[in-house]
């Protein structure tokens, strides 16, 4: 049977066909939909973990118990999960284990564009890289087989264009006859004391040599001979761009990017006149090929930053003066020169109408706070007109950054420092930072923007939301008690739709020369579960009272539009009743009582 699947849907299907028992992960674009799609396969125990390290360790536990396990995360999540990954490489697996790392070249939804292939080499584990949805499914299945055959965790690298791209997939039946999980004691293999680890390390090195030899003749690394003039080594999404732009070039397509099958590379290099590597981000393949003494061209012409596209690839080759393999001849250049249009108003993403974060950021801006930020929808508090975020590094960093910055500031500036962090991000790694802040007595203020959901990645549940991935009720983490338990003496809960209260509490805690936490209590407007978010009555502008002062525009709500004046008159604000969620924040800003509940 054939279906059109996204890369993420196909990875989920591959996990099902591979007989996976346990799936864990933390949401992160572009990886999130893998676990959401695994849910449809009822035999798989699928759940969200509070962070990627925990997810990894849950998966390792399942593998040690003899079940196949898949763990999913975005590229930066692997940084968090790296600690267990590196040692799990030494112990090897029980049931097969696959770690999906979804990279985001071009940073469509990320804070950096690190290349996960380096992790596979660093941790000495094999990595597969699919080029379309069919390979996403097939390689996921294959990864489990390799994991058990070579006693190793296996990484599978996706990227935004693979995870969120769709193509046709031929489905298969799931495997059968896998051994049932049982406890098997093997402490000398699984307890990584130095004495045991010293025995394991040489086995890891041997394993990588064997995998490289295996890869040289395995069907997932394939040579396509065409024109002998140009030969290209490529993998993953880049393979498609090579076939698109250099249709006549010979290609060595690598399905396994770590370890590299160097004998196959050497053989391919001999058959072509000029050898290129086309890969996104780092010169990962290129440097190893060159280190093996094979002449190759790569990042001299292919961009190292951003994602590749057919246009960028074509441009790279033509700019370098390379012809042949189906590239356009120089004189054809004008045909593809792009149309130029004037500069247009941009359309960046924005917080939703009625978003509970808006009033908080407005107040922080008014109080001229120095805001250490974090990862989530609220990072959009950086955007005008709110302009209320000053730093953003990684998950959980807001609190520890605040704790560090107050240690170097003069007394009068310490109280300006406020950390903002979402509920899910706080539970991910913020809790460690808050413990540090309480432990060392850093006099900064923390705002936990508790909207009861992991919103930015598309509304995933978390340990504070009271629900699991399977939509089953769970005991929600009590954030107030948790903050008190780590040693914060001043914890206040505020309604972020009440601007006066929010301002009063913020000023109180900012002036306090002690660590303190403010928790906002309004849910995300996108939470669909009943009884969580309830829409208020829409507001409207009374045209006779509107003075055109634009005070309501300072919160940047998408439901409020400035209507420029007709000749000789004043402009006015206008609220779109279809967009307004009735949060009431704009009404509190109007000094002329021009905003009221809808008529």
């Amino acid at each position, binding site marked *: 049977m*054939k279906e059109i699947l996204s890369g993420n849907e196909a990875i989920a299907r591959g996990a099902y066909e591979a007989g996976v028992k346990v799936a864990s992960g933390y949401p992160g674009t572009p990886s999130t939909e893998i676990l959401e799609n695994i849910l449809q396969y009822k035999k798989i125990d699928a759940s969200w973990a509070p962070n990627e390290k925990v997810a990894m360790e849950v998966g390792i536990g399942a593998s040690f118990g003899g079940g196949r396990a898949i763990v999913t995360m975005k590229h930066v999540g692997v940084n968090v999960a790296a600690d267990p990954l590196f040692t799990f490489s030494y112990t090897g697996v029980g049931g097969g284990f696959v770690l999906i790392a979804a990279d985001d070249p071009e940073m469509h*939804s990320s804070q950096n564009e690190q290349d996960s292939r380096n992790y596979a080499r660093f941790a000495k584990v094999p990595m597969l890289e699919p080029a379309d949805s069919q390979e996403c499914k097939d390689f996921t299945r294959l990864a489990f087989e390799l994991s058990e055959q070579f006693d190793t965790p296996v990484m599978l690298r996706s990227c935004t264009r693979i995870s969120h791209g*769709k*193509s046709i997939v031929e489905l298969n039946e799931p495997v059968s006859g896998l051994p049932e999980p049982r406890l098997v004691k093997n402490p000398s293999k699984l307890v990584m004391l130095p004495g045991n680890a010293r025995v394991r390390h040489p086995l890891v090195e041997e394993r990588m040599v064997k995998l490289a030899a295996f890869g040289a003749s395995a069907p997932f690394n394939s040579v396509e001979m065409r024109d002998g003039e140009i030969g290209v080594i490529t993998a993953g999404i880049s393979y498609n761009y090579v076939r698109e732009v250099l249709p006549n070039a010979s290609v060595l397509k690598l399905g396994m990017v770590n370890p590299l099958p160097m004998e196959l590379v050497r053989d391919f290099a001999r058959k072509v006149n000029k050898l290129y590597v086309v890969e996104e981000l780092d010169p990962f393949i290129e440097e190893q090929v060159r280190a093996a003494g094979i002449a190759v061209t790569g990042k001299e012409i292919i961009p190292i930053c951003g994602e590749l596209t057919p246009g960028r690839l074509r441009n790279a080759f033509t700019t370098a003066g390379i012809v042949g393999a189906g590239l356009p001849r120089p004189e054809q250049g004008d045909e593809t020169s792009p149309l130029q249009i004037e500069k247009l108003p941009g359309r960046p993403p924005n*917080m939703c109408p009625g978003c509970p974060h808006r009033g908080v950021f407005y107040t922080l801006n008014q109080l001229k706070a120095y805001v250490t930020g974090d990862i989530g929808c609220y990072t959009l508090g950086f955007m005008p007109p709110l302009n209320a975020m000053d730093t953003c590094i990684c998950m959980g960093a807001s609190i520890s950054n605040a704790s560090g910055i107050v240690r170097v500031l003069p007394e009068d500036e310490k109280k300006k420092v406020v950390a903002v962090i979402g509920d899910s991000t706080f539970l991910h790694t913020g809790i460690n930072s808050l413990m540090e802040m309480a432990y060392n007595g850093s006099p900064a203020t923390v705002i936990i923007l508790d909207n009861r959901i992991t919103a930015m990645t598309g509304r995933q549940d978390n340990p504070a939301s009271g629900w699991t991935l399977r939509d089953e009720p769970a005991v929600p983490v009590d954030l107030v008690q948790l903050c008190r338990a780590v040693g914060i003496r001043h914890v206040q809960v505020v309604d972020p739709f009440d601007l006066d209260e929010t301002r009063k509490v913020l000023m109180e805690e900012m002036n306090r020369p002690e660590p303190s936490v403010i928790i906002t209590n309004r849910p995300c407007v996108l939470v669909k579960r009943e009884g969580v978010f309830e829409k208020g009555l829409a507001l409207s502008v009374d045209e006779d009272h509107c003075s055109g002062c634009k005070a309501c525009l300072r919160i940047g709500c*998408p439901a*409020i*539009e400035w209507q420029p004046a007709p000749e000789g008159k004043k402009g006015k604000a206008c609220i779109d009743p279809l967009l307004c969620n009735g949060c009431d924040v704009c009404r509190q800003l109007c000094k002329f009582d021009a905003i009221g509940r809808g008529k």
Partner: protein
Amino acid sequence: MSNSVTNILLVGVGGQGILLASEILSEAFMLGGFDVKKSEIHGMSQRGGSVASHVRYGKEVFSPIVPEGEGDILFGFEMLETYRSLPLLKKGGTVVANDLRIPPPSVLLGQETYPEDLTGKIEALFPDFTLVDGQKLATEAGNIRAANTVLLGAVSKRLDIPEVCWRQALEKMVPKKALEMNIQAFRMGRDL
């Protein structure tokens, strides 16, 4: 079956239903016996940012992204986004656009103005231009929310896919209770 690949770009604003429309297109192409690839960025789409979905079909499709300047059809859900995306089209390409204006943040704030006469500007650059009042026709079909389906109907007429494939794709992707109304909305677009 032709060896060439047809490139369709769907552009608009996050939340307009662009992803569903591109799913229906892809489904119809697969049912028509073609290879299909589609690609889009949806990390922040729900937050009202610009959204573009690329759909390509043919005998064999490699890149899921339409090569710059090689779009055959631009399917615009909003006028500013349609105009912004014109450089993705090939010379003499086709534009089918929804006559809808959604002001971006800087326009809401009164800092910039929404460009005027986009219809005229688009037509001057791409004479094969169809402007569809999707909202009006969808209201006539029974629900303003079927505006995308009207547009889909208008686009379908420019593609060499049997009508039965479109119907099957709609049956698969649209909830049952809204199906008849959507089929009617599709027809209205197809008959334009």
